C-alpha cells in the first residue's frame, strides 16, 4: 500500500433534475435531500463527496439503497456525469476528458463488475471474458489466451465454450470478475458485485476476491449494502447516507468509534468478535516486558479466535506477537468490553425506536 492515492474525488456534487446548475448553490449551502425535492423538484444525488482511494487497496463504499453509492461509483468512469467536482485518476482530472480520452480511460484504466453480471448472452464464456481486449482491437487469439488464463484463475476451467445462461449465478459472476481482470486495468469497480448471490456463494466469492487481491494489488472500489461484507473486504471504509459521507476510516476504527447515531445503529448488529482484531483492542507494550501472560496471540487475530483460545475465561491476559516479537498485551476484560457496542450501552436510535 502506498501513501499516494490512486483516485481522488474532490467536492463532488450530483443533482438530478431538469436544471441542476440552478440549485447547486442551495445544495452547497447545506440544503438536505428531502427539502431539495420538496422545494425545487430536484434530487440531490451526491453532496460534497471527497474520498481518497488508495493505490492497491480495497475501498468499500457502503450505504443503504438510495444513499447514492451506485451513483458515486458510476462517476469514476463517468457513466454518470458530475454536476460539479473533480475526479483525479493518477492526478489527472477525468471530468475534463473528451469522448475519445474517456473511452481510453474505460478501456485501459478501469474495469467494472456488475450486480446483475451484465454478460453478453450471445457470446460464450471465453468471448465474454476476453471482451475488454476485443474492444481494444486486440486479436482474437490474444484475447482468448488472456481470457483462458483468468478463467482458470477464477476456477472456471472447462467452461470456456458454455453460454452465460448455462451457468449458475455464482459462476456467471466469476466470468464477470474474469472479464474485469482480463482487461488488466489497475482500477476495478465492483458495483454490488456479490449482492445477487446466495450467502454461501457470496462468502466463497469474497474469499476469491481477497485471494486474488493478495497477488494482484488492484485498486478496488467495492460497493455494498452489507456491513459484514464491507468489514470483511475493506482496507478503507466509506459510509454514505442520503448522498453525503457520514464517516470514512479504517473499518476497525469505525467499529470502535462510530461518528454518529446512524453508524452506531449500523454497527450494533454485527458480530464484533469476528470482525475486530487483536491490534485494535490491545494495550501497546511501550518497551515494557510482557508479564504473567497466560499465552500468546497474533497481532491480526480476530477476537473470536482469542475467545476460543481462552476457553471463555476472562481472568487472563495474553501477550500479542507480531512477526514473532511481542508488541502488546491483551487483557480479556478489554476484549469483552470491546464486544459491547457503544450504542447498546447508551441507547441508539434503533433501541429507542423499538
Amino acid at each position, binding site marked *: 500500500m502506498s501513501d499516494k492515492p490512486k483516485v481522488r474525488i474532490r467536492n463532488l456534487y450530483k443533482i438530478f433534475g431538469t436544471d441542476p446548475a440552478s440549485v447547486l448553490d442551495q445544495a452547497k449551502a447545506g440544503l438536505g435531500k428531502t427539502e431539495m425535492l420538496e422545494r425545487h423538484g430536484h434530487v440531490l444525488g451526491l453532496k460534497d463527496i471527497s474520498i481518497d482511494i488508495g493505490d492497491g487497496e480495497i475501498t468499500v463504499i457502503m450505504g443503504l439503497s438510495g444513499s447514492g453509492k451506485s451513483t458515486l461509483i458510476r462517476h469514476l468512469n463517468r*457513466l454518470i456525469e458530475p454536476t460539479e467536482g473533480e475526479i483525479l485518476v493518477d492526478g489527472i482530472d477525468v471530468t475534463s476528458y473528451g469522448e475519445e480520452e474517456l473511452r481510453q480511460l474505460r478501456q485501459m484504466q478501469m474495469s467494472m463488475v456488475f450486480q446483475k453480471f*451484465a*454478460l*453478453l448472452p450471445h457470446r460464450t464464456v471465453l468471448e465474454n471474458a476476453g471482451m475488454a481486449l476485443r474492444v481494444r482491437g486486440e486479436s482474437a487469439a490474444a484475447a482468448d489466451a488472456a481470457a483462458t488464463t483468468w478463467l482458470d484463475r477464477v476456477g472456471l476451467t472447462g467452461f470456456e465454450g458454455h*453460454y452465460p445462461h448455462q451457468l449458475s449465478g455464482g459462476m456467471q459472476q466469476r466470468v464477470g470478475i474474469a*472479464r474485469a481482470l482480463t482487461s488488466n486495468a489497475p482500477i476495478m469497480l465492483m458495483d454490488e458485485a456479490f449482492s445477487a448471490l446466495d450467502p454461501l456463494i457470496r462468502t466463497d466469492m469474497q474469499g476469491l476476491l481477497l485471494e486474488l487481491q493478495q497477488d494482484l494489488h488492484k485498486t478496488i472500489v467495492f460497493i455494498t449494502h452489507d456491513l459484514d461484507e464491507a468489514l470483511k473486504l475493506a482496507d478503507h471504509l466509506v459510509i454514505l447516507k442520503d448522498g453525503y459521507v457520514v464517516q470514512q476510516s479504517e473499518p476497525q476504527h469505525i467499529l470502535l468509534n462510530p461518528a454518529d447515531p446512524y453508524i452506531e445503529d449500523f454497527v450494533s448488529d454485527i458480530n464484533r468478535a469476528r470482525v475486530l482484531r487483536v491490534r485494535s483492542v490491545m494495550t501497546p507494550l511501550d518497551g515494557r516486558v510482557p508479564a504473567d501472560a497466560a499465552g500468546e496471540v497474533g497481532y491480526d487475530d480476530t477476537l473470536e479466535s482469542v475467545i476460543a483460545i481462552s476457553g471463555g475465561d476472562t481472568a487472563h491476559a495474553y501477550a500479542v506477537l507480531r512477526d514473532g516479537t511481542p508488541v502488546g498485551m491483551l487483557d480479556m476484560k478489554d476484549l469483552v468490553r470491546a464486544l459491547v457496542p457503544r450504542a447498546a450501552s447508551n441507547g441508539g436510535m434503533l433501541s429507542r425506536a423499538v
Partner: protein
Amino acid sequence: MATYEGLFDGMGLRAWCDDGAKDGPMTMSELLAKAKGGELDTAWYDVPFPSLDNLHAACKAVPRTRDMTSGVEQAFLDVKAALQFVLDPLTQPLSWLLDGSLFLFGAIPWWVLLPLILVAVFAVSRSLGVTLFVAVSFLFLSFIDHYSYSVQTLSIIFVCTVLSVLFGVPIGIAMSKSDGLQRGMIPILDMLQTLPSFVYLIPLIFLFSITESKLYGIAIILYAIVPVIRLTDLGIRLVDRDVIEAADAFGMNARQKLFGVEIPLALPNIMAGVNQTIMMALAMVVIASLVSAPGLGVLVLRGIRNLELGVGLVSGVCIVLLAVILDRVSKASLSRINASQKS
C-alpha cells in the same frame, strides 16, 4: 328552388354567387330531377345536409364535391412529372431486380431449384420436420401444375422481403436512437399499415407504367416494410440496460455497441419482424396481381373475373400452403436464434 337559396339571398351574396357561376357537367341527381321534370320538391323534414353539392345547387359559386376530388387528381397530375423525374430512375433497379429474379427462378429447371430450396430451408431451420413438410408441399404444388406460379410468387416475395429488411432495419435502428424520429415515423407507419391495400395501387398506376414490375414491387415493399421497422425499433429499445452499461463501461464505441451488442440482442425481435414482413408481402403479392404481378394471384384474379370457382379455390389453397411454408420456415429459424440466447 334549392333549399339554401334563401340563405345566400339573405346574406346578400346573390351577386357573388351568380358572378362565380361555373357550370360543370351535370350530376346524377340533377339528371334524375330533370328526367322527372321540374325541380325536386323538398318537404321541411327532408332538408338536405348543407354539403358542397347541396350548397352548389343554391349558389353556383360554391364548388361541388366532384370539383374537390378532381382538384386532388389535378394536383397529383401537376406534380406527377416532377415525381416521375425523381422516382423513375431511383426505382428502376427494383424493376431489374424483380425481372431478373423472376427470370432466374423461371430459368432454373425444377430438378435443380427444388433441391436448392430444400437445402436452404434446412440451413435456416435446422429442422427435418419442417424440411420434409416443405418438400411434400412443393411436390404437391408441382403435381397440380402450380409450380411455375408458386415460384413466381416466391421470387417476388424473396426480392421484396430482402429489400424491406435492407431498408427497414436501418430505419428501425435510427428510430430507436432518436425519440423525435420515432414520434415522426409512427404516424407514417400507422398510415401505411391501415391504408387499404388497393389504395396504394392508385397513385402508383399514375406514376409508373403498368407494365413495369416496380409498380407492384413498390406497393408490396411499402406494405410489408412496416413490421420490420417497428420490431427493429422495439427490439433495440428493449435491449437490457445493464448489458448496454457494461458495454459502455468497457469503452465500446457506438459502432461496436451497435453491431456487437444491440443488434445481436435485438435479433429475436428483428426476426419476428421479418416473419411478419414475409407474411404481409405474400398478402400483398396476391392483390398486386391486379397491376400485372405474376404468380398465384393471377389465378385468383382469373377465378374472380371469369367465375372459375375451381381455379380460384385451388390457387387460394396453394397460397395458404405457401404462407404456411414461409411462416414455419421463418419461425423455425427464429426459435433457433431464441434458443441460443436465453438469459
